[in-house]
Structures are given as structure tokens and as C-alpha cells.
């Protein structure tokens, strides 16, 4: 086949070599605008798993590449004057120039024609595609070919908000180094790694605003270098930064629906990029080459079978690339917001950094560097222990529950510490034995709000699950506040008495069976416009067939097109609702619940007040974000007053509506701050359900980013769920400081 390859980067050269090696009868030309020895950028990193594939694909270049490698296995995280070293990472790196040299020689040896210093225009590229059987577009992130065929491929090109510059430095670092340095203008970070004995790559990155404040937008090359050298002087150990056309760029995230158009196949950075902080661009480019060469081989030199072969190439490569891009996105987001973690202690900061992309968790890291993870666990346990002791001075603790202690139960410090999920947590006078939470869903089995055997059974099951805290279904503060006719309530004294008996019985059974004490939270709320619905198993928000009760909400807007209209609550009715919450809180305390959770989420009454999608009031309880927050905060104040001062108050908060016109996460963070100011001890982070049609994203750990922001920006402890299934997941999230408690979705027994 006649094959033209546009671009002599790692993608194009490796493809040309592999295709030629497989079938020397091909006629292959690589066209590169630069001279053979002019390469920009410094060293590139590889991880061990990639290398096996290179060996299989072409042993000869594999050997040369690996002979030029520098290898190391540690990551250093330098932050706040401390360096945390984490081992077991198995990196190797090579100078880009060296790599290209090897590939160029290999191409020449195999009979690939290499044309240097020839730059093609869009027109040239279009013409070339007509002359050859296959045109391979490997012309990098600013691809010319993509400008010609981008529409057919479904391009999405997203410039990111940080600035980076790719320098080198004239000494060999001993580890992959992440260094964070505070300047008077803001935080800068360096990603640096060695690629031969005497040279390292040194990438500097910062936020756009910081970059501008530092005057780097106007700085010359020399000034940029001088600035970075001064800032990172300690990391550079007196060495210089080297420039090689090193300019400040915004990273471009490139994605495509399809990777080929007719007889033009795209590969490498031209068709997909992954942020440099996961260091995988060259690896991806070369893996593309292996797959594409395989596809060319499969069509046996028959251009008629090209279409099918290119489809196989895409099928093979797209999922792998998408997974890495997903990880890259997480990593990139982390670095864009790293200021948020400025208060973290170095070990936690390092753990958070290493687990940022979601690819590595607590368990996995423990295999790579057991010492580091043991240190994290011990640090976490020690902090938990210290915090457990600190809050213990309180008195007047009701003796109704074994988890409410006065501090003497505090465990001694441990050198062999359990993973973070098993670290205790003290909330007020309540010491929870671990950070796993169970929140069973409503059985819709109550009669007139009265709990019964179904509730006892569910509670008993949850209490023996091993979780440290169990949350009840939402208990309605008034009969109209029930979601379904079978919702449990806490609006009659008799309900409270029944809960008291039920709790005592289930706790008694648990301790008789030798189970450890577990915290129990009463969740109270008012369904608002989601009330008077059929049992949940019949679908949500469908009005009852008979016996509907009148609905109330912030405004007279229906929840869903198929649900009933609520009446707008009059200002004079609000104190009554507030009192109903306070009364339920008081009774929950008397019944012996350890924790109280107020529901301000899931589209129920208080969430409806919060959200502009459900609150169109013109009085003081609507309008501005403060107005919409007013009633929910009044409720929280009244509840805090009625609920024993030493026991913890949790608020289940809708952090964002997942809707264009709805609550944004910024507002969620503000609300969380306001709640904390009013004595809320933990924010249980929720999202969506304010209205039925929203744009949720049920990615893995989809609520964790919101929890992370609330915890680390509003400075309030958080609880988070959302399909966290394993204890390893929970420990990862907790150790990384993205939440303080995790609601687990256990698989069925």
C-alpha cells in the first residue's frame, strides 16, 4: 500500500516503522516540518506496563529505547517545606530527542522514506490524501489534517484554564517530583522528572489569574525563566532552567467521536490528548501506532478493506484512550483547584495527590508502598483519636445510648492502624466506631406515621452490618410532610415513644449478641410537594389513587407534570412548620437517637425553598440566595435549639440542582458555610432531584467532587454516598480528605 504519514513525532515514526516491518512491500513516507535533530520538549515518561507491548511490537526499537531509559520508582511531593516520598511507582523516562532519533533510525533501516523540513498546508494535505491509499495524520495537537477533516470526525477541543511551560534543567532529579510553591501572586506547581543522568524535565503550571498577576503574560523568555528559577530555587538545588522554545500554553484537551475519515486515519495528539500530569501522551501515541499497524496488516494491503480495518483500530483504541482521558480529566481538575488543599498536612496532601485521578486507591497504593500507606493510616487514626478525645469534655450526656460517651472510651494510639474507614470519629458527645454509614430506604410500611416491625427489622439489619452509623428513612415532621401513606413520622408523641422502645430493643439485641455500639440517626424532614405519593416501588411522585392530602411548598409549582399542585405556604404558616421540625428534634432526642439529620435535599420542602427552580416567592423567603436560604436556616436554628447541644446535627443538603437554571455548587458551598455557622456538624452531600428532569452524571463517585469542595472550601465535615461500594473506595475518599463519612451501597448479600 502507498502510505503517507504526516508528522514525524513518536506516533508517526513508530507507525511507519511497525507497518514497514510487517510488510516491506509498503511504500511509506513520513513528512515532517522540522529538521531531524530539532526536537522540542524534553523527556517523556513511561510506566512499566506499556513497555511489554513495545517489546512485542518491535524488539529492536524496544531494546534501544529501554537501554536509554533512566528508571526510578519514587514520587516526591514537596509541599509546605516537607518532602513526602512514595515508592513503588516504576517509572522510566527518555529524552524526546533520543526517542525520536531511535525511531528515525529504525524507519530508515526498514526502508521508510523520511522527508524532513517539509511543512504541509491544508491544501497539500487534502491533495496528498487523494494520491495515497492511506494517509496517517500524526501531526500533533495543532494538527493541520484535523482542520481539514475535523467536522467529519466530530472534534471537541477544550482549552483548559491553567498555564504551563515546559522547561528542562541540567541535573538529574532522584524522583518524579511534584513541588508546590507559594508566590506572592499565588500558588505555582512544578512537575519534574529526570530523563537522563544529567537532565530533567521541569514543567511549571499555575492558574491563569496567578500567571497574569505575576506579569508572566508580558514577560520575555528570560524573565519567565528568572521568575521560575527564583521560585523553585530549592527544588533546582542551584541549577538552571533551560528553555527550548518554552512558551506558556493553555493545555488543549482534544477528543473525537471518530478517528478516521475515508482513507485518512488519525492518531496520537492529533486526535486525543490527555493532560501531561498523567504523563501518557507519548505512550498513547505509540500504542495507537501498534494498533493501527495491526489494522493495516489485517487488511492485507487491500485498500477496499481499509474501512473495516480502521474501524477495528478505533474499537481497540478508543475505550483505552477514553479511560485515560477520564483519569486525565480528574488529574487536571485536581491541579486546577489544588489551592483548596492548602490547609492539608503533607501526608494527606500527598495521598490526595496520588489518588487524584481515581486510578489508584488506598489498597492499590498499599501494594506499591506499604510504608507510606501505613503512615497515612497511622496519621489518620492518630488524628481521629486526638479529635475523639478533644470533644469528650462535654457533660450532660444522656445515657440512653452506648455510643454517647464522656471520653474514657477513647482508644490509645496505635502503630498498626486500621484503614481510614475503620477510624472512629467523634461528633459532639457521640463517638462513632467507624466512618461507614448505612442509610436504608423507606419500606413504606408505616401506618399513620407509626413505625412497626418492618422498621425494627430494617434497623436491626443495618445495625449489624458493621457500619458505624445508621440513618433512618426520612421521618415526617407532620402528617402532610409524609412522602407516601406509608412514610414513618415523628409528629405524634406516640411515634417518639414507639421509636424509643424500638431503638432500645434493637440495641439490646445487638449488645446481647456482642455487637459493638453503633450510632443511630433520626432523619427528619417534610416532603413538601413530593408528598402524598404512591409507594416507591410503583414509581416516584405519582399521586395516591385515593386519600390524597393537600400539598404545600415554597411556591405553587408542581414537582412533576404528573404530580399534584402544592399550595404556596403563607409567611404566617412558616413558624408552624419550623416548630414541627423543632418538636421532632426534641422527641428524637428523647427517644434516644444519637444523631439528628435534617433533610434539605431530594426536592423535599426545605430543598424547594433553597432552589430557584422551586422557589418563586416574592417575600423575604425567596428571590436572592440569602432569601431562599432564610427559611431552611430558621429551621436549622430552631432544631439546633431543640436537639441536645452535645449531640451532632447533620444536614442532608442539595449541593447543586444539576440544572442550568438551578442551584450551582457555588451556592451549595455558601449554604454549607451558613449551616456550619448555625451549628450543623456534618453536611451530608446530595445533588439533584429538586425537579425531575435534570442532567445528572452517574460517574463513579459522582457526589465526591461536591463533597470535596464543601469540606475543603466551606470547612465543614462531610458525609457522602453515591455508589461507594467497597471499603477500599471509602478509605481512599476519607484518607484523601474528600469526606469524613461514607454512605456505602453494599451489594446484596
Amino acid at each position, binding site marked *: 500500500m502507498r502510505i503517507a504519514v504526516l508528522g514525524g513525532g513518536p506516533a508517526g515514526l513508530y507507525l511507519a516503522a511497525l507497518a514497514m516491518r510487517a510488510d516491506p512491500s509498503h511504500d511509506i513516507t513520513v513528512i515532517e516540518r522540522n529538521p531531524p535533530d530539532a526536537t522540542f520538549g524534553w523527556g517523556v515518561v513511561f510506566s512499566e506496563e506499556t513497555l511489554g507491548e513495545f517489546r512485542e511490537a518491535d524488539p529492536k526499537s524496544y531494546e534501544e529505547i529501554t537501554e536509554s531509559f533512566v528508571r526510578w520508582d519514587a514520587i516526591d511531593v514537596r509541599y509546605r517545606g516537607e518532602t513526602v516520598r512514595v515508592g513503588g511507582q516504576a517509572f522510566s523516562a527518555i529524552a524526546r530527542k533520543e526517542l525520536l532519533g531511535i525511531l528515525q533510525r529504525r524507519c530508515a533501516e526498514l526502508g521508510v522514506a523520511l522527508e524532513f523540513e517539509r511543512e504541509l498546508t491544508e491544501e497539500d494535505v487534502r491533495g496528498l490524501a487523494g494520491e495515497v491509499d492511506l494517509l496517517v495524520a500524526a501531526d500533533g495537537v495543532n494538527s493541520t489534517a484535523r482542520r481539514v477533516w475535523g467536522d467529519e470526525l466530530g472534534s471537541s477541543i477544550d482549552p483548559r484554564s491553567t498555564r504551563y511551560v515546559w522547561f528542562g534543567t541540567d541535573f538529574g532529579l532522584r524522583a518524579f517530583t511534584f513541588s508546590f510553591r507559594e508566590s506572592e501572586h499565588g500558588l505555582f506547581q512544578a512537575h519534574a522528572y529526570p530523563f537522563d543522568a544529567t537532565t530533567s524535565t521541569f514543567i511549571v503550571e499555575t492558574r491563569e489569574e496567578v500567571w497574569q498577576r505575576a506579569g508572566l503574560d508580558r514577560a520575555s523568555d528570560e524573565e519567565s525563566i528568572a521568575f521560575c528559577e527564583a521560585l523553585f530555587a530549592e527544588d533546582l538545588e542551584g541549577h538552571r532552567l533551560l528553555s527550548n522554545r518554552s512558551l506558556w500554553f493553555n493545555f488543549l484537551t482534544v477528543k473525537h467521536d471518530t478517528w478516521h475519515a475515508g482513507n485518512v486515519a488519525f492518531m496520537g495528539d492529533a486526535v486525543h490528548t490527555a493532560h501531561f500530569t498523567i504523563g501518557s501522551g507519548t505512550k498513547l501515541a505509540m500504542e495507537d501506532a501498534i494498533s493501527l499497524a495491526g489494522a493495516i496488516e489485517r487488511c492485507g494491503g487491500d485498500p477496499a478493506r481499509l474501512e473495516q480495518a480502521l*474501524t477495528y483500530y478505533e474499537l481497540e483504541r478508543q475505550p483505552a484512550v477514553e479511560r485515560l482521558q477520564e483519569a486525565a480529566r480528574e488529574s487536571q481538575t485536581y491541579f486546577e483547584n489544588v489551592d483548596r488543599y492548602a490547609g492539608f498536612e503533607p501526608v494527606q496532601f500527598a495521598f490526595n495527590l496520588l489518588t487524584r485521578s481515581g486510578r489508584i486507591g488506598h489498597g492499590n497504593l498499599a501494594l506499591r508502598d506499604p510504608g507510606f500507606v501505613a503512615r497515612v493510616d497511622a496519621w489518620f487514626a492518630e488524628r481521629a483519636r486526638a479529635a475523639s478525645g478533644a470533644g469528650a469534655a462535654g457533660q450532660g450526656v444522656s445515657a440512653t445510648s452506648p455510643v454517647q460517651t464522656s471520653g474514657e472510651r477513647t482508644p490509645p494510639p496505635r502503630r498498626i492502624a486500621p484503614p481510614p474507614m475503620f477510624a472512629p470519629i467523634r461528633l459532639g458527645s457521640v463517638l462513632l466506631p467507624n466512618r461507614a454509614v448505612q442509610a436504608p*430506604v*423507606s419500606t413504606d410500611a408505616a401506618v399513620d406515621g407509626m413505625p412497626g416491625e418492618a422498621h425494627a427489622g430494617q434497623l436491626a439489619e443495618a445495625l449489624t452490618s458493621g457500619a458505624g452509623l445508621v440513618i433512618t428513612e426520612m421521618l415526617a415532621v407532620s402528617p402532610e410532610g409524609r412522602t407516601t401513606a406509608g412514610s414513618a413520622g415523628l409528629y405524634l408523641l406516640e411515634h417518639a415513644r414507639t421509636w424509643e422502645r424500638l431503638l432500645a430493643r434493637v440495641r439490646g439485641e445487638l449488645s446481647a449478641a456482642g455487637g459493638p455500639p453503633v450510632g443511630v440517626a433520626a432523619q427528619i424532614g417534610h416532603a413538601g410537594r413530593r408528598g402524598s405519593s404512591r409507594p*416507591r416501588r410503583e414509581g416516584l411522585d*405519582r399521586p395516591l389513587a385515593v386519600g390524597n392530602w393537600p400539598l404545600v411548598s415554597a411556591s405553587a409549582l408542581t414537582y412533576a407534570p404528573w404530580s399534584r399542585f402544592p399550595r404556596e405556604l403563607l409567611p404566617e404558616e412558616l413558624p408552624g412548620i419550623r416548630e414541627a421540625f423543632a418538636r421532632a428534634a426534641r422527641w428524637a432526642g428523647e427517644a434516644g437517637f444519637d444523631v439528628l439529620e435534617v433533610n434539605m435535599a431530594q426536592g423535599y420542602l426545605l430543598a424547594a425553598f433553597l432552589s430557584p427552580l422551586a422557589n418563586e416567592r416574592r417575600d423575604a423567603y425567596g428571590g436572592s440566595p440569602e432569601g431562599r436560604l432564610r427559611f431552611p436556616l430558621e429551621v436549622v436554628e430552631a432544631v439546633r435549639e431543640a436537639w441536645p447541644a452535645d449531640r451532632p446535627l447533620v444536614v442532608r443538603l442539595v449541593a447543586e440542582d444539576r440544572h442550568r437554571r438551578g442551584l450551582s455548587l457555588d451556592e451549595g458551598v455558601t449554604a454549607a458555610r451558613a449551616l456550619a455557622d448555625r451549628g450543623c456538624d456534618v453536611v451530608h452531600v446530595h445533588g439533584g432531584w429538586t425537579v425531575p*428532569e*435534570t442532567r*445528572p452524571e452517574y460517574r463513579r463517585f459522582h457526589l465526591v467532587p461536591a463533597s470535596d469542595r464543601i469540606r475543603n472550601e466551606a470547612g465543614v465535615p462531610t458525609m457522602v*454516598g453515591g455508589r461507594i461500594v467497597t471499603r477500599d473506595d471509602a478509605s481512599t475518599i476519607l484518607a484523601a480528605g474528600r469526606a469524613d463519612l461514607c454512605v456505602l451501597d453494599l451489594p446484596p448479600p
Partner: protein
Amino acid sequence: MRVGVGLPGIVPGAEGDVVLEWARRADSGPFSSLGTIDRLAYGNQEAFAMLAAAAAVTSRVRLVTMAVIAPLRPAALLAKEAATVDRLSGGRLVLGLATGARQEDYMVAGVDGRGRGPRFSEQLVAIRSAWEEGTVGPRPAREGGPPILVGGSSGPAFARMARLADGYVHGGGPPRAFANAAARALAAWSEAERPGRPDLWGQAYFTLGDGGTVERGAMYLRDYYAFTGPFAEKIAAGNLTTSQAIVDLYRGYEDAGCDELVLLPTVASLDQVDRLAQVLA
């Protein structure tokens, strides 16, 4: 994991007697269900009519639509058709519904494709209400009507499934894609606080036989999925054409937590169901 098989009437040109005999063989074979797909501007047989015919010659297998494009029909009509098939089959219908992806189907139906998501939600409610209240008869064979599955891969589709359906029907793909969708379905379900867990259904295409047969299968898929442009070729490439491929996919789906996998034919000849039965045995 249970395994069902698609009816050959989904392939244009299928003969009536082949569809009926296929259904009989499936009923006495290792299959738990017979499935159909739904398209309008295409040469496949209509989903409910095909299932009604299958109901008449089977007694055991469940009959599943994977999935009917709901917004193309008024909800009351859907409720009636589904209730009818449910009665004819003695309560064996599983009603899979989705919004579909083909613009042409909406065009020939004269239905506006915009806003179909929210409208589909309303339809789901209307169908359930029609069954429960008997506003359009007949009443389904079972109390509460047949189970409803909802398909789709967007966040809103998962939320809709969790809000109003009993399970999720996936559109096909490798096990990893199914596992991914299943995780999303479960996340939406637990967020909705529905009790229990959703039933998870998967599907895949197969063609078993000589090179010519396999090529016919591939041609059917390229044609059927022509509207997806370059993806048609990808779908054709994912076709299961060997017993090993079927076994691998089966294991992958089982590991991913699939409750029932329906294997859809691409060639409307009886040897296909026989060959598949042999592979599964």
C-alpha cells in the same frame, strides 16, 4: 444470568412461518425469553404484533421488547398493546421502552423529536396509571402490569429509569460498556431511594454459520445502523460470530451483573436459533 433470544422478524424479509417456528424452538430450548427491537422507518416486523404471534405458539418464555420507541405511540395505545400481549401470553410480557435514536422514525411518525425525554417520562406514568385504573382496557394479566424496563445511556435516562421503571435495558456493546451502564443504573436507583434493585438486561447480536452467513449478518447490521454513520461498522465488528465469542460475552455480562442477556439474530433462518441453542447447551 438468564439468556434469551431475539425473534427473526427483526430482520427485514423474515417469513412468518420462520418467526413462529423459531419461537416454538426457543420455547423448548435453553432460552428464558424472546425479544424484539423496534423501528418504524425500517423493514422489521412490528414489535407487539410479533410478540402476540409468539405468545400464541409458546407457553414458557417471557416476551420482551428491547426496546419500543415510546414517544412514537400515544401512551394509551402503548398501554393497550402491552396489556393485550400480556393477557395473550398469560403475563409473560416485559415492556422495554426507550426514546430511540433515529430521527427518521420520528419523521415518518410525524412526531416531534424535541423534548422527547420529558414526554417519555409522562408516558411511563400514563401507562402505569392506565393499567392500574383500567382507563384503557384490557387490564394486564398481572396486578400492576408487566415489568417496565427503560433504556438509554444519558444521565437523564438513568434517572428516568430509576424514577419510574423496574429495570434497565442496555443497548449493546462489550461487557465493559455494560458494566459501566449497570453501575450508573444502580447509582441512579439508589439515589432515587427505590427499594430493591433494578433488573438489568443486556443484548448482543450474533450470526453463526459459514462465511457467507456471517457476511449477511454484518450487512444487516451495517444497514440497520446506517443512521449512526461510522458507528455502523463498529457495531458490525462487535457481532458475535463464533461460539467462543458468545461464551466470552456471556461470562463478561454475567460478571458485570447482568440479569438477562438477549442475543439478537441478524439472519432470519431457523438454523440460527438451533446453532445458538447448541452453543448455550
